[in-house]
C-alpha cells in the first residue's frame, strides 16, 4: 500500500544567467494512494514531477511537507523499513559492469538482509523468468541495454518487495524486452503487490494500468481509472488530456 497525502517537494537551483537562486516546486500537494493488487500509472510530460514523486515513495528523497506511507511505514520516520519493502527501478539505473548477474544479485541479497540460499533461489527464478539464465555467470559489462535492464528488474524484485516502483521501466528497450517487463508487472499485480509505474508510453498505460494519475507542473490532475479520466474531460485519448492540460484548461 502506498499513501501520499498533500506531499510537497521543491528544489533550489541557481540561475546561471542571473546567478540568483530559484525555487522550483517539483511536487505540489500530491495526494493519492495505490492498493495491493493494483497497477497505478503516473503520467506526465518531462519535468512534471513523476520521477521526483517516485523517488519520494522509494525513500531516495524526503518530502518537505505532507505524509507519505509505504507498507504502513512512515517514509520520513522509518525510511529503512519503508525501503525494505520497496523494489525500485529507474531507467537511468545501471548495474555493476564488472560483476556477473549471479554475483550482483547475491550482493544485493546481502544488502537486503536475505539469507544466501533464499537470495540464490530467487535470483535463479527471476533470471529464468526474464530469459537470462544462460548469462548468469557472464560479466555484465558486455550486456545490451535490455539485458542490463532485465538484471535491474531482477535486482528490484529480488527481496520479494510488497511495493514495486518502476520509473519509466521500458525506456530504451526493444519491443520484446518491453513486453517481458510489462508481462512481469501483470504477474506482480496478480500476486497482490502494489505497483506504481511512470511512463510516457500511452499504449502501455492503456494496456496495464488500473488507475491513472496525470502530473502536470507538480500537480496531480485526475486520479481515476483511465476510462473515467477520459470521460470526465471529454477526451478521446490521453494525448488530448495532455493538450488540455498544456493549454491551461485543467
Amino acid at each position, binding site marked *: 500500500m502506498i499513501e501520499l497525502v498533500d506531499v510537497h517537494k521543491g528544489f533550489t537551483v541557481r540561475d546561471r544567467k542571473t546567478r540568483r537562486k530559484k525555487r522550483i516546486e517539483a511536487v505540489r500537494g500530491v495526494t493519492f494512494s495505490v492498493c495491493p493488487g493494483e497497477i497505478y500509472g503516473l503520467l506526465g510530460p518531462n519535468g512534471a514531477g513523476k520521477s521526483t514523486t517516485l523517488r519520494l515513495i522509494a525513500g531516495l528523497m524526503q518530502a518537505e511537507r505532507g505524509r507519505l506511507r509505504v507498507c504502513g511505514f512512515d517514509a520520513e520516520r522509518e525510511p529503512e523499513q519503508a525501503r525494505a519493502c520497496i523494489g525500485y527501478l529507474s531507467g*537511468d539505473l545501471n548495474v555493476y559492469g564488472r560483476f556477473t548477474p549471479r554475483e550482483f544479485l547475491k550482493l544485493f541479497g546481502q544488502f537486503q538482509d536475505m539469507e544466501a540460499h533464499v537470495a540464490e533461489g530467487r535470483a535463479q527464478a527471476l533470471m529464468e523468468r526474464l530469459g537470462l539464465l544462460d548469462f548468469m555467470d557472464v560479466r555484465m559489462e558486455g550486456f545490451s541495454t535490455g539485458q542490463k535492464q532485465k538484471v535491474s528488474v531482477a*535486482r528490484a524484485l529480488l527481496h520479494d518487495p510488497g511495493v514495486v516502483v518502476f520509473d519509466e521501466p521500458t525506456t530504451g528497450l526493444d519491443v520484446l524486452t518491453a513486453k517481458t517487463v510489462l508481462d512481469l508487472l501483470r504477474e506482480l499485480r496478480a500476486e497482490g503487490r502494489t505497483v506504481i509505474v511512470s511512463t510516457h508510453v500511452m499504449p502501455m498505460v492503456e494496456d496495464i494500468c488500473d488507475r491513472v494519475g496525470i502530473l502536470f507542473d507538480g500537480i496531480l490532475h485526475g486520479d481515476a481509472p483511465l476510462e473515467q479520466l477520459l470521460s470526465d474531460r471529454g477526451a478521446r485519448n490521453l494525448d488530448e488530456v495532455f493538450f488540455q492540460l498544456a493549454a491551461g484548461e485543467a
Partner: protein
Amino acid sequence: MRGALLVCKKEFLELSKDRRTVFFTFLLPIILYPLLIAMVAGLSRTDEVKRQGRASRVLLVDPGGLLEPLLRAEPESFELVSPPAGDLRRAIRDQRLEMRIQVEPEAPLKLKRQQTFTITAACDPSEDASGLALSRLKRVLEKQNHRWVQERLRQAGASLELDAPSRLETLEMGDLGLKVGRTLGAFLPYLLMLMMFAGSMQHGIYATAGEKERGTLLSLLSTRLPRHQIIWGKLLYVFSVGLMSAIINLLSMGLSIGGAFKGGVAVSGGSLADLASPAVLGLTFLLMVPLGLLFANFIVMMGIRARNSMEAGTSIMPGMVVVMVMAVFSMAPGIEKMPFLPYVPILNVSLAVRKLFSQQGNAFEYGIALAMTLGLAAALTWLSTRLLNRETAVFTL
C-alpha cells in the same frame, strides 16, 4: 556496522574484478621497486668498479721531473697522457682525460732550499672520475710530503716527530641505528602521507563520483541499508586501500633498498627491526590510522559532492598538493624545534613520527597529534555522512 562492511566488501569485490588496477595498485610496487633499485644499485656498482679499476688519465706538466716518477710508480692509479687537442676544459668535460697536473718549474730548486713549491691540479670534481683522480693525487702527495718532511728533519738533526706534535684518534660513539632512524624519520612521514593519499585517491573517486556517474549509486541507496552505513563502507574501503598501498610501497621500497645496499644506511628489513622497535612501529601505525581516515574522508567527501569523476579529481587535487607541501615542509631540518608545530594538523603527525624514529619521542606531542587527527577524522566522518544524506549529493540539479 554490518551494512558498512557489506559496502566495503562490495567495493573490494569490484576492485578484485579489475585485474589491471589490482596489479598496478598492489603488485606493481612489489615488482617495480626491487627491479628499479636493483638496476640503479647494479649500475652504480658497475660504474664504481670500473672507475676504481681504471687508472686516471693525467696530463702532467712537470719540467723539473719531480712528480713524474711518483705517478709512474703507481700505474694502476695514473696513466700519463699527452696533451689533448683543443681546450683543456673541454677535454676534461668530454672525459678524454681526468686531470692536468702542473708543477712549477723551480720545484726541484725550492725543494732543495726547503721552500714550498706549488702543484696545480685542474680537474672537475663534479665528474666522479675527475674527483677520483684528485683524491688519488692527494693521497700520493700526502705520502710524499710526509717523506720530504722526514728527510728535512733528518738533515736538520731534529726529532722525526717534530712535524706531528699530536695525533688525533677518534672513537666512533655515534649510534648508526639512531642516525638511520633520524634520516628515516625525516622522510618516512612524507612517503607515508603521499602514498596514503595518492594510493586511495583514484579508488575514492571511483567509489563515489564514479558510482554516481555510472548510475549505480541509486541502486545502492534504494536498498534497506542506512545511508550512513553506505558512506562508512566507502570510507572504510578508501581508507583500507590507502593504508595497504602505503604499507606495500614502503615495505617493497625498504626491503629492496636493504637488499641492494647491504650494510649501508639504507632501510632494510633487518636494520629497520634494529632501529625501530615494535613499539615505535606500532605507535607510528597508530598515528597513520586516523591520518588515513582523515584523507579518506576528504576524498570521499569531495567525491560525493562532485558531479562526475573529472570534477572529483580536480577538487581532490588541491588537497593532495597541500599534503605534499606539508610533507615536504616536515622534512626540512630543524623544523621540529618550532614550538607551534605540535598544534598544526598533519604536520604534527610528521613531527611525532620523526621524533619516534630518532628516539626523542614526546608523549605530550604524540598525544596531541593523535587526539587532533582523531578528532579531525571524526569530524570529517560526521560531515561526510551528513553530506551523503543531502539529496543534492546524489541528485544533480
